[in-house]
């Protein structure tokens, strides 16, 4: 039966308002839970501004002092990314559905990797430091583990996206499994691997700056010291250095990626072609050899220490497996707080992101300069690892969940705006024009053209941010910014491995649950 249009519009309005009320209620509830306090934030602003101001007066002598640690940070990030991609490439064959030689191994590996992917690098680092002692080796190892897992996930998604017909067309010439790998899969994923290397590097450079918080090498060690000694002037300089470094690495990585897309070598005959192939193979083997040597040199751990560490690691793992369930109530309290932090940060990031995206998209905002300034600002927001950002908020609102929420919220705003404005800029012009021809304001184009058109992307972005925030919020507590991380560091420090085991398991389950929930919503609404 046809509904009258009045009824239709009424129902639609009721639905929209109900949704809005529910969202507001959730936000208020979350705000209450993390002790959101406008007054505290407001009165904290001068202190934070002061910190930012100090950042602008650079302490050059301090830069020299920390430069070796800064280099170590970059070194850790690069080495871990290299190890990550080199190990991930062969593994990816085993975990991708369309290339896996064995379905049972495929299934088991995927479950194991999905479990380990829920553990943040800082947690790995904290545990590994107790095994292999303080220093960059633990940091490299921790970041390498998460790099392998991250690269593996990206490669797997890519390989599984290779059209069946491409595989079929190779099988159809009578190619063996090995040949399909070598001539079909490998060339197809090679360039992607490079892109993935740089993506992992961008994650790792952020990850490496905070490893020092748990003693796993890099500049974070100094940052942690300055934080504990309340040396905010030094901290400000450090943060600025980090900002510039991360910006530079992101820029270089983008530049190299663009460059590689367009380079091409001219060949004239088959002999040259063969020569080129041969030298390329030799170069690749030599490069891998050199890399392995460099990694070996840089890690700098002797065999005995390694063996000792591994045997210790075994006892730790066994103790972790005997989880101490009496800690359950405390854990649930911490996990709840982490979930609240992640949710509220996602909401904050989405709301501000929606507003900023309007100004940050070239095809909506006609003022090019505003777009450029906003884009720059947004990139600034997402440059800091949230956990470093939290330190800035400590200055304003003191340690605790609120600082965590604000830091994560700022980061989410940055990432969300960047990604969503890119989605908007990719909208087909015709769709926008079909709204524009009605002669309406730009804001109406945004509301009636852009938002409905990009709803699937929007939902998936929010969910993606939620998943990512959930992972980050579990480690916020390591520096005292609320959530489960606080219990985790204390218990690692006390070597309460039975409790640590339970906590890691709890984190994995929570993160996995959020992933499952988000996948469910994604399937339903997209």
């Amino acid at each position, binding site marked *: 039966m046809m509904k009258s249009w009045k009824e239709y519009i009424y129902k639609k309005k009721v639905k929209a308002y109900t949704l809005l009320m529910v969202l507001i209620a959730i936000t208020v509830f979350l705000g209450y839970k993390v002790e959101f306090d406008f007054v505290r934030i407001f009165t904290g602003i001068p202190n934070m501004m002061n910190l930012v101001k100090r950042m602008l007066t650079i302490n050059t002598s301090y830069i020299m002092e920390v430069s070796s640690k800064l280099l170590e940070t970059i070194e850790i990030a690069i080495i871990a990314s290299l190890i990550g991609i080199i190990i991930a490439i062969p593994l990816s064959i085993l975990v991708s559905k369309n290339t896996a030689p064995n379905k049972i191994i495929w299934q088991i590996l995927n479950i194991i990797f999905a479990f380990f992917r829920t553990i943040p690098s800082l947690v790995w680092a904290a545990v590994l430091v107790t095994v292999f002692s303080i220093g960059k080796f633990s940091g490299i190892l921790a970041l390498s583990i998460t790099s392998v897992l991250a690269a593996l996930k990206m490669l797997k998604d890519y390989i599984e996206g290779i059209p069946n017909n491409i595989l079929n067309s190779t099988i*159809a*010439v*009578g*190619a063996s499994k090995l*040949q399909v790998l070598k*001539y079909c899969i490998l060339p197809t994923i090679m360039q992607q691997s490079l892109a993935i290397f740089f993506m992992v590097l961008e994650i790792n450079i952020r990850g490496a700056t905070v490893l020092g918080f748990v003693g796993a090498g890099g500049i974070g060690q100094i940052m942690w010291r300055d934080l504990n000694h309340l040396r905010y002037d030094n901290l400000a300089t450090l943060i600025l250095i980090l900002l510039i470094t991360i910006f530079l690495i992101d820029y270089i990585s983008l530049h190299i990626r663009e460059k590689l897309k367009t380079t091409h070598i001219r060949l004239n005959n088959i002999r040259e*072609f063969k020569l080129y192939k041969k030298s390329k193979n030799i170069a690749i083997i030599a490069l891998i050899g050199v890399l392995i040597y460099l990694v070996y040199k840089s890690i700098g751990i002797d065999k005995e220490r390694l063996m000792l560490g591994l045997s210790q690691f075994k006892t730790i793992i066994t103790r972790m497996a005997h989880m101490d369930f009496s800690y359950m109530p405390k854990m649930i309290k911490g996990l709840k707080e982490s979930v609240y932090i992640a949710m509220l940060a996602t909401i904050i990031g989405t709301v501000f992101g929606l507003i900023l995206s309007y100004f940050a998209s070239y095809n909506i905002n006609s003022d090019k300069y505003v777009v450029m300034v906003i884009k720059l600002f947004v990139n600034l927001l997402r440059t800091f690892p949230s956990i470093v950002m939290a330190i800035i908020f400590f200055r304003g609102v003191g340690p605790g969940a609120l600082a965590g929420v604000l830091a994560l919220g700022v980061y989410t705003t940055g990432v969300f705006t960047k990604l969503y404005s890119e989605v908007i800029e990719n909208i087909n012009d015709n769709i926008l024009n079909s709204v524009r021809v009605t002669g309406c304001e730009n804001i109406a184009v945004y509301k009636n053209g852009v938002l409905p058109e990009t709803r699937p992307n929007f939902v998936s972005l929010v969910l993606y941010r939620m998943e990512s925030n959930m992972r980050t919020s579990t480690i916020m507590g390591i520096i005292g910014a609320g959530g489960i991380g606080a219990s985790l560091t204390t218990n690692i420090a006390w070597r309460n491995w039975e409790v640590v085991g339970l906590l890691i398991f709890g984190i994995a389950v929570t993160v996995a649950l959020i992933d499952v929930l988000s996948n469910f919503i994604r399937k339903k609404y997209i």
Partner: protein
Amino acid sequence: MIKLENLSVSYDGEYFAVNNVNLNIQKGEFIGVIGSSGSGKSSLLKTINKLVEPKTGKIIIDDEDITSYEEKKLRGVRRKIGMIFQDYNLIERSTVLENVLMGRLGYKSKLDTILGRFTESEYALAEKALKNVGLEDKIFERADNLSGGQKQRVSIAKALCQQPKIILADEPVASLDIQTSKVVMDYFKMVNFKKNMTIVLNIHDVNLAREYCSRIVALHKGKIVFDGSAGELDDEILERIYL
């Protein structure tokens, strides 16, 4: 050359994408398979070299019953059959030459594969195949730099490089404009004529089928509803096929 007996294919165990097909194809025939979308053309073609496993029936290639062949033996059969797809399916990041050389993979040992070795005569073969389709000047170009028509010619060169006895082509001209389609179809005709190669191609454009194919087979819901020369295919039959 190709003999299909009571061949049936089903993906879900209920609906038969290919339903009890009997087909006997002689050496040197140029066959066009027509039919509406979902009628089972692709499934039929892919069953001939067992990219799709048949539910029932027999597949006989070159007097060899391959129905129950496993991977290893299949390689020997598949290298005799060149296959071409609608969306080209080249390795986009490899050069044209590398793509064409892939036609030789069925003849390569494990060691050759690991070292990536091809013989002089195989290089010569690849060059000649590219010359045949008029792409000798694109030989070191990366495949993703080519136009659609050029990509399709590369995949024909790759099939020729196999020195096959049979060519199977699944909608080889569906992604091309009419001008380029004719160029590509002319290559098929030439190969068919010069080398007496057996060619089976799926094609939804009935006019092209009539113009080029010596024999036309029409599928409807997995069943053969017409099998005869282009001249015998009248409007009444067409109406029934595209109902």
